[in-house]
């Protein structure tokens, strides 16, 4: 086991101001086990009294080696690892990976699977935003909202369990479609959830939006503008809160997002409150997309018929020798991808999620890389927190909604 490394001031000399070296300002360690850092983020703070002079994030406490591990697995077996990157958005991660594999190998996806994918991705966005809303309100001392949002989140988890048998890590979206068709109870469960959630969103807003304490803690705190967002590569609700309608679902639609009628909510302030408003309004838009998808859900297969990439249905294995051969080859050797590289973008609840896959002509990827929104958005934390109180820093960390599994990979 490695020894705990003590950080000495010499190593930090280039990161902190001169005043820290003379002892005029104080250096304070925050994390990695601090409950408000939403995971295992460690921050080194330079404080002048209670004012943050400098904030130095230290990441890597959740480095899991996922990308390297995925390179040694065939594409079907690498997919379950993508679930565990951004653990509040497993379906979105699966979707991005599958879209990239499909683009690399040229696999088609049937229309029913496309609509179901959109519906599930939006459900996952709702569940992620619910966790965000609960935990960041908890950081700002609004305890009851945590209990309410987790109550609604259980409904989404029940739907995910209904379709896949797992509450969080579903691996339900597969290259070429879905694992299997949804059960008959699915539609009624989703419709019921949409009705309940819409009413409950009003309840959350009644608790927070016009709450004087919440507004005092959030308006004008952690301000960033559109120009800075583009300079730092920041995406997602953070850039939309500065008035820029940047959303991959609109600028480069995937899985048929261009067929749905929805808006990209934007706010002008660029502060914590604007980010909160953007996310709450996004949840309403997600419900709108899910309702449209339910109305137009076509019948038909949910998996591509391309037997070189997609395993045959179970029923064929007893009658067709060819199906047995395909099934055996696909699950032992995997399918061969061309030695080309693809990049696929997706709008995760946190922003632009990109996956880069370079094939090597065999069944595994030569290099698989994730461009994750948490990693990019975390960069602006020093920028946002300078000049604010330590207590506001907690709100700022919550508002950029980082997931350390997504950041460290």
């Amino acid at each position, binding site marked *: 086991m490695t020894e*705990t490394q003590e950080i000495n001031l010499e190593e930090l000399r280039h990161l902190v101001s001169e005043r820290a070296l003379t002892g005029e300002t104080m250096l304070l360690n925050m994390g990695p*086990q601090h*409950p408000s850092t939403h995971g295992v983020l460690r921050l080194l703070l330079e404080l002048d009294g209670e004012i943050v002079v400098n904030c130095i994030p230290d990441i890597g406490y959740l480095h899991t080696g996922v990308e390297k591990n995925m390179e040694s697995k065939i594409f079907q077996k690498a997919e379950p690892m993508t679930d565990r990157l951004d653990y509040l958005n497993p379906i979105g991660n699966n979707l991005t990976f599958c879209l990239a594999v499909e683009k690399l190998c040229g696999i088609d996806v049937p229309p029913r699977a496309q609509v179901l994918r959109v519906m599930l991705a939006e459900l996952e966005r709702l569940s992620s935003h619910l966790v965000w809303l609960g935990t960041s309100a908890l950081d700002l001392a609004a305890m009851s909202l945590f209990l309410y949002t987790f*109550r609604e989140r259980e409904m989404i988890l029940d739907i995910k369990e209904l379709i896949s048998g797992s509450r969080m890590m579903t691996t339900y979206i597969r290259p070429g479609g879905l694992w299997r068709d949804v059960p008959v109870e699915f539609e009624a469960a989703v419709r019921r959830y949409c009705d309940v959630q819409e009413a409950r969103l009003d309840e959350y807003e009644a608790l927070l939006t016009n709450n004087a304490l919440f507004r005092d803690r959030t308006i004008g705190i952690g301000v960033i503008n559109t120009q800075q967002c583009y300079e730092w590569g920041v995406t997602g609700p953070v850039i939309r809160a500065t008035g820029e309608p940047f959303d991959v679902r609109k600028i480069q639609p995937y899985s048929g997002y261009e067929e749905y009628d929805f808006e990209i909510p934007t706010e002008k302030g660029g502060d914590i409150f604007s980010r909160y408003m953007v996310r709450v309004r996004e949840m309403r838009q997600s419900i709108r997309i899910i309702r449209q998808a339910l109305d137009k859900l076509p019948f038909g297969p949910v998996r591509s018929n391309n037997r070189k990439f997609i395993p045959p249905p179970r029923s064929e294995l007893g009658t067709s020798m060819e199906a047995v051969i395909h099934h055996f080859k696909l699950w032992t050797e995997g399918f061969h991808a061309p030695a080309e590289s693809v990049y696929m973008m997706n709008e995760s609840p946190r922003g632009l999620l990109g996956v880069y896959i370079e094939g090597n002509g065999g069944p595994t990827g030569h290099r698989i890389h994730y461009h994750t929104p948490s990693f990019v958005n975390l960069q602006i934390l020093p920028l946002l927190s300078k000049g604010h109180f330590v207590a506001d820093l907690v709100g700022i960390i919550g508002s950029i909604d980082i997931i350390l599994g997504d950041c460290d990979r």
Partner: protein
Amino acid sequence: MGVEQKLGNMGIATTTLEQAVNWARTNSMWPMLFGLACCAIEMMAAEAANYDMSRFGMELMRASPRQSDLMIVAGRVSRKMAPVLRRLYDQMPDPKWVIAMGDCASTGGIFNNYAVVQGVDEIVPVNVYVAGCPPRPEALVHGILILQEKVRSEHLSQWR
């Protein structure tokens, strides 16, 4: 405790010191508010209204190791996190217990690679392992009940 029948309603119950202390330890165990990865979300779900861990005397999560009795290692432990985890464990006052929640904390799970500690029992002694990736909140509650069972049956000579 058959003596109260003889004493009537004098308001006195007799027990052994062992039983009384174990009973107190079991029902006021404060877990440490400390999540690592995916399992932490399920731990939060177990804390929230639907599963409500406060039914088992566990609602009071402490952010400071100095005030907590139970460490729930919820998630994968990377090599960088391992020394921190050990330091947190050392800072907890006795008596203390550890639950390894999930496959990653128990055995390394699907991450059999350079970055992840292959089971948190390499670093700290573990009392209960909870399987699942991530375990359902019911599974965590079951793990906690097993731990309470263990604590209840501890003997005076084993006390720390």
